[in-house]
């Protein structure tokens, strides 16, 4: 428990924004207790903490999305009260929430200014609005054509960037970003950082929440650490390191398991893709996954990593090429077919494709393989379900009072573990995981990675699709870089971050790639 705190950061001048003794309770849950938080003009202020530490709640209170039970606000030296989200916007506080707050059926161009449209007379000035939007999107390298696209047709990452563009469009004094990077690729994150630095230079205060501790050292000036709803303190980022920060978060010595302990046992080929293609999404994808090895597909979002994984699970139409599973020809039309053939998959979007929100944990675990819980062919075997659920909760160290708890009441990390558990019930021959640790705190992330190793050691073949480079490097036995929708190059374990990034972002030409890969073998 006893972790030495670095010196608190020193404050000169009037804060842009300060809150004292703020508490918020959801029914029984004490989201934050008596939190203090001081934000100076022009600073990039990171907030870190484990899942459920209270980060989102605190910023939701600042942005007027939630009311605190107690506490006082000060803005530029005067005490203020924030009644609603629009009230906060008027005061110059803009936020990008963790859960994207866009309108799927409306065009991007409309989304960004919704709620404060530019008008000529009382009528919306589409032309003027469109112009502004185009400029904003340009900052993220998003094409003009986006203006007219429906948001629901964009990828999660593209949507995230649109939300950020929306927040930037406010010309706010305070900009709040809750886990903006969770689903962005490093290239996209760079665009984000440039924008953030520019704003900070202009005197805008930025609150930045992230589970990717390493990136904080690039962008943040100071960091506030939260634990169990309390604010531990605010420190200069320079007085900290990734490990000391992690220690503060978990309130103890945190040591990450050094890069995948497990030894690849090159068993028989379980899953193999041969020249696989799916419309415009990806083409000519060929790869083998053997039992006992972890193959990682890494690529920037839009590179089609997730789609390739989905194709193997029958959730993405295959337009060319073929697949083999356990040596047999394999062309699943649906997830259930894939499951019957012995392949299970963790979907990329936890909330949309993974969680049955208001259902118990046990429900969420058994639902993936109900055929295992048959009695007399039709009856649901609830005792077996309970046993399995309890085992999984133990095995995956899921933090919950009981298997009857609703999954919506779990933190993201734990919710993610439950959805993973669902895929393990049936002991699949091949386990496919898309973005396995997205938006999950550092502790949970490490546990999930250990879990992957373990599944692999138990003989399963594991295929991971991720856009998180750190994760890829950490768990891959073989790392396949996807670029422009096709397999670009392959690296063995231990390759350097720089090389992979170069390969993925295209700073690498076809030529060098071969000996690069060789270089790894040597």
């Amino acid at each position, binding site marked *: 428990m006893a972790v030495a705190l670095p010196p608190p950061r020193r404050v000169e001048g009037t804060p842009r924004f300060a809150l004292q003794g*703020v508490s918020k*309770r*959801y*029914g*029984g*849950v004490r989201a934050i207790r008596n939190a203090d938080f001081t934000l100076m003009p022009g600073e990039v202020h990171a907030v870190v903490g484990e899942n459920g530490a209270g980060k989102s709640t605190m910023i939701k*209170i600042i942005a007027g999305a*939630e*009311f*605190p*039970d*107690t*506490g*006082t*606000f000060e803005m530029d030296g005067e005490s*203020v*009260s*924030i*009644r609603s989200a629009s009230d906060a916007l008027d005061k110059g506080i803009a936020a990008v929430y963790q859960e994207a707050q866009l309108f799927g059926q409306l065009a991007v161009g409309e989304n960004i200014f919704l709620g404060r449209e530019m008008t000529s007379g009382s009528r919306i000035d589409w032309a003027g609005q469109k112009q502004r939007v185009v400029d904003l999107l340009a900052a993220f390298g998003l094409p003009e054509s986006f203006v007219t696209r429906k948001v629901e047709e964009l990828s999660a990452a593209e949507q995230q960037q649109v939300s950020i563009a929306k927040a930037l469009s406010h010309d706010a004094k305070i900009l709040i970003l809750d886990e903006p990077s969770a689903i962005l690729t490093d290239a996209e994150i760079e665009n984000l950082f440039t924008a953030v630095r520019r704003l900070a230079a202009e005197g805008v205060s930025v609150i930045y929440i992230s589970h990717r501790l390493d990136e904080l050292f690039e962008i943040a000036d100071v960091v506030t650490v939260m634990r169990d709803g309390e604010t531990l303190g605010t420190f200069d980022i320079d007085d900290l390191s990734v490990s000391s920060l992690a220690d503060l978060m978990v309130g103890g010595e945190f040591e990450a398991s050094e890069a995948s302990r497990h030894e690849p046992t090159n068993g028989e080929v379980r899953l193999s893709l041969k020249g696989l293609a799916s419309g415009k999404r990806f083409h000519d994808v060929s790869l083998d996954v053997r039992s006992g090895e972890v193959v990682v597909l890494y690529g920037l979002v839009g590179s089609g990593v997730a789609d390739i994984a989905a194709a193997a699970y029958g*959730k993405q139409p295959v337009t060319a090429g073929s697949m083999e599973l356990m040596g047999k020809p394999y062309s699943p039309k*649906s*997830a*259930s077919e*894939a*499951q019957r053939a012995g392949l299970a*998959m963790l*979907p990329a979007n936890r909330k*949309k*494709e*993974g*969680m*049955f*929100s*208001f*259902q118990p944990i046990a*429900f969420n675990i*058994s*639902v*993936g*393989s*109900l*055929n295992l*819980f*048959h009695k007399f062919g*039709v*009856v*649901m075997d609830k005792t077996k379900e309970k046993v399995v659920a309890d085992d999984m909760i133990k095995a995956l160290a899921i933090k919950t009072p009981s298997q009857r708890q609703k999954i919506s009441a779990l933190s993201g990390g734990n919710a993610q573990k439950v959805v993973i558990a*669902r895929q393990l019930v049936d002991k699949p021959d091949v386990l496919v995981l898309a973005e396995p640790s997205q938006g999950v705190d550092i502790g949970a992330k490490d546990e999930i990675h250990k879990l992957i190793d373990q599944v692999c050691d138990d003989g399963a073949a594991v295929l991971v699709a991720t856009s998180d480079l750190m994760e890829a490097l950490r768990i891959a036995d073989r790392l396949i870089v996807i670029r422009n929708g096709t397999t670009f190059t392959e690296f063995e374990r231990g390759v350097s971050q720089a090389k992979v990034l170069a390969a993925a972002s295209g700073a690498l030409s076809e030529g060098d790639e071969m000996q690069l890969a060789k270089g790894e073998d040597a």
Partner: protein
Amino acid sequence: MSATTTHETVAPAKERTDIVKLLLTNRTVLIIVLLLLLVGIFGGLSAAGVIAPGYNSDYLSAALINLVPLTMLALAQLLVIMSGKGGIDLSVGAIVSLAGMIFGFMHGMWGWPLLLAIIATVIFGALCGLLNGVLVAYLGYPPLIVTLATYYAMWSLALVINNQKPINTQPIQELYGLSKAVELPLIGQYLPLVPMGVFLFLIPTLLVVWFVVSKTTYGRELYAIGTNDTAASWAGINTQRTRALVYVGAGAISGLVAVVTVSQFASARPDSGVSGNGMALPAITMAVLGGVAITGGIGTVAGVFLAALLIVWLNAGILLAFEGNNGTQLQLFALGAVLIGAALLNGITNRKYSGTK
């Protein structure tokens, strides 16, 4: 409110006993309480002679005859609404009419043996449901549209099939026996006579639906697609089949209700399921009152059954208590008030206890 004010809603929440919380937040419990109050008050008033005498066990059990079709169709709605994606079935009443006529032909005109005719009618209802199911689940029509369309279509088919004449041949009229009140075995002599339909149709349907929904793996699939259809298909559930089947089930129940109504009316009427406000809207109302979430994934058989019972006995009481046109008009008022009242109370208290603003 200002950020400095303290929330009342939080602190007391802790002190509240679980019973109070259960009563306020759980629809089924709330309805049980209302039910007890209702019977207590009306029974008392009636015994005391304040209102017309006779709000007694005999009357209440006689009133159960309406409970049979109403509850059965409400259960059909339970299945459909639970399946989510805007699930709703406006066509049940029309299916009752059409299936009733078919039954009239088979049993009343072609002299099919009763059991065979009943089975055939249920199958026919199921087929009507299948039409809805295929259009909704496989072709992706919005349920509201599909069932509205089939409601119109089957309604007019029921009319033309016997050029809008009811079928009331001897065998059909004898069917009234099925709705007669009977004495329960064993304990019967201590209890009032109960309409036979309750045993022949209602209780079996209740048991089957309860079993399917809460005991089978299919029930699990149903809750799954209702809670999150996308996640369900990622979890390897055949969402289309699961969804189509609930409409088939609803159709089958409607087919059975057709038999009930025919026996109750002692004639197969082309408009039996659509006369007045029809049977669909009341059924949906009962389901909703019983706590079925219109967004899918939430609902219990007990809740629906109790809701229907509450309304049937409430109506029966009102008829005794109020003379003339007043009585029948007040039934409307009571239904509306109970529905809104229950929904508001549960809604507010749920928010209060879960703390979300």
